[in-house]
């Protein structure tokens, strides 16, 4: 990388950490660099140093930059086979707990949360479950709380839902209004949305299942290890960890602390 770019990137990330306590220092560099470059265009800044000055002195500008630094790409029942495997392999075991706590780490705008809630309701478990849905981006959390998604994606979500073993009509879970699908708010009766960073915060509860999908790929090995450590500490004996389709604890320091339950679908269990 060009030396100046490398220096400026590091300084920007350090400035964000010192000023706003958002810690991107151990994120994967290639993707961060692309997003910062994209931000330069949006902010019409010539250099990363100029962007740094801007966000250091203007919290509103930082909040705008945060939207570009995080990746709010999500969908409901993404990788349907993953949710089908949760239904078939994990739910029968979850059922044995009198009460269930689930942590959805890096929940972004909430698609994973509503998918999980729908699955649990159909399995009769939602009422005795508490879901903690956490993210570092307050605007994403706000969207997640509202549970309003663009209608143009609903057809794809419906297909996912059916392939994931959905037992009802997907339309039962939302009301269409103009271009939006407003999801049944009782789905989030037992959901607590909270600000939490896998980079800087600690464990807040004992859980039976943690879902953290397509979050760890943005972390370097050191930060991945920290996250796996938090998950390990939070999960109860034999608790479940479910990851994104290209994520695994195998190469982390916690490789031996988790064993695959359904390897292909990235469903693991604490050993």
């Amino acid at each position: 990388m060009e030396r100046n770019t490398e220096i400026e990137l590091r300084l920007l990330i350090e400035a964000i950490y010192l000023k706003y306590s958002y810690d991107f220092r151990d994120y994967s560099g290639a993707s961060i660099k692309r997003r910062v470059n994209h931000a330069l265009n949006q902010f019409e800044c010539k250099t990363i140093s100029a962007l740094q000055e801007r966000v250091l002195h203007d919290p509103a500008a930082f909040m705008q930059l945060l939207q570009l630094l995080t990746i709010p790409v999500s969908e409901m029942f993404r990788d349907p086979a993953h949710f089908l495997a949760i239904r078939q392999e994990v739910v029968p075991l979850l059922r044995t707990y009198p009460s269930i706590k689930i942590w959805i780490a890096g929940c972004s705008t909430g698609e994973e949360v509503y998918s999980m809630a729908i699955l649990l309701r159909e399995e009769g478990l939602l009422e005795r479950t508490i879901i903690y849905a956490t993210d570092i981006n307050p605007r994403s959390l706000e969207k997640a709380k509202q549970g309003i998604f663009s209608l143009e994606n609903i057809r794809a979500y419906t297909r996912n839902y059916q392939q994931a073993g959905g037992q009802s009509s997907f339309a039962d879970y939302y009301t269409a209004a103009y271009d939006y699908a407003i999801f049944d708010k009782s789905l989030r009766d037992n959901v607590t949305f909270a600000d939490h960073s896998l980079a800087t915060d600690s464990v807040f509860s004992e859980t039976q299942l943690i879902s953290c999908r397509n979050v760890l790929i943005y972390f370097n090995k050191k930060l991945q290890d920290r996250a796996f450590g938090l998950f390990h500490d939070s999960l109860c004996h034999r608790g479940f960890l479910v990851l994104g389709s290209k994520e695994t604890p195998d190469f982390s320091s916690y490789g031996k602390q988790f064993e695959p339950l359904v390897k292909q679908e990235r469903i693991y269990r604490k050993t």
Partner: protein
Amino acid sequence: MKTGSLSHAPASRVEAIVIGASAGGVEALLSIFGTLGSGFALPIIVVLHLPEQRRSQLVEVIARRVAMPVVEAQDKAVIESGTLYLAAPGYHLSVEQDRSLSLSLEERLHYSRPAIDYLFESAADAYGPALLAVLLTGANQDGARGLAQVKRLGGLTVVQDPAEAQVATMPDAALALQQPDYILTLHGIGRLLVELEGTSC
């Protein structure tokens, strides 16, 4: 610019090869890889555009026809010499500064994820002049910008001869943006890789 002749083999030491291909890419890749022996020592990292829907059989297809080890590129994997890495469908593939691989789900670029531009630009950042980038047949503009960045950071650039490419759009787009070090046929690209590997050891 050299066309075809390998008499000016570069003195700089190539440490990694990145290749981008789209429509017509499988055949083109097989044609190039067929010329490489099992002891080929450099790492090769490939982005080939494929439909995202189903699990890709590409690793098996390529592995059957190539002497060197072929794997799907895994997040955080350290790049090993003599290994052929294929990007997983649905995820962007990048090279980190410590020469490991990383995956991401940023928006599609040129309707593509993985995007060739992202692989080339990040690999240029990690390898600088020690990178060789090869852009093959394809029906869109992906890879042109990445190839220009490889050249800007001192790496070697190769574009498949558009006259030979199954679909010339991608090579043409790259040529419109910058003059590569070589414009070669698939046969010539295979020979170049073998020759560069010779100078790298």
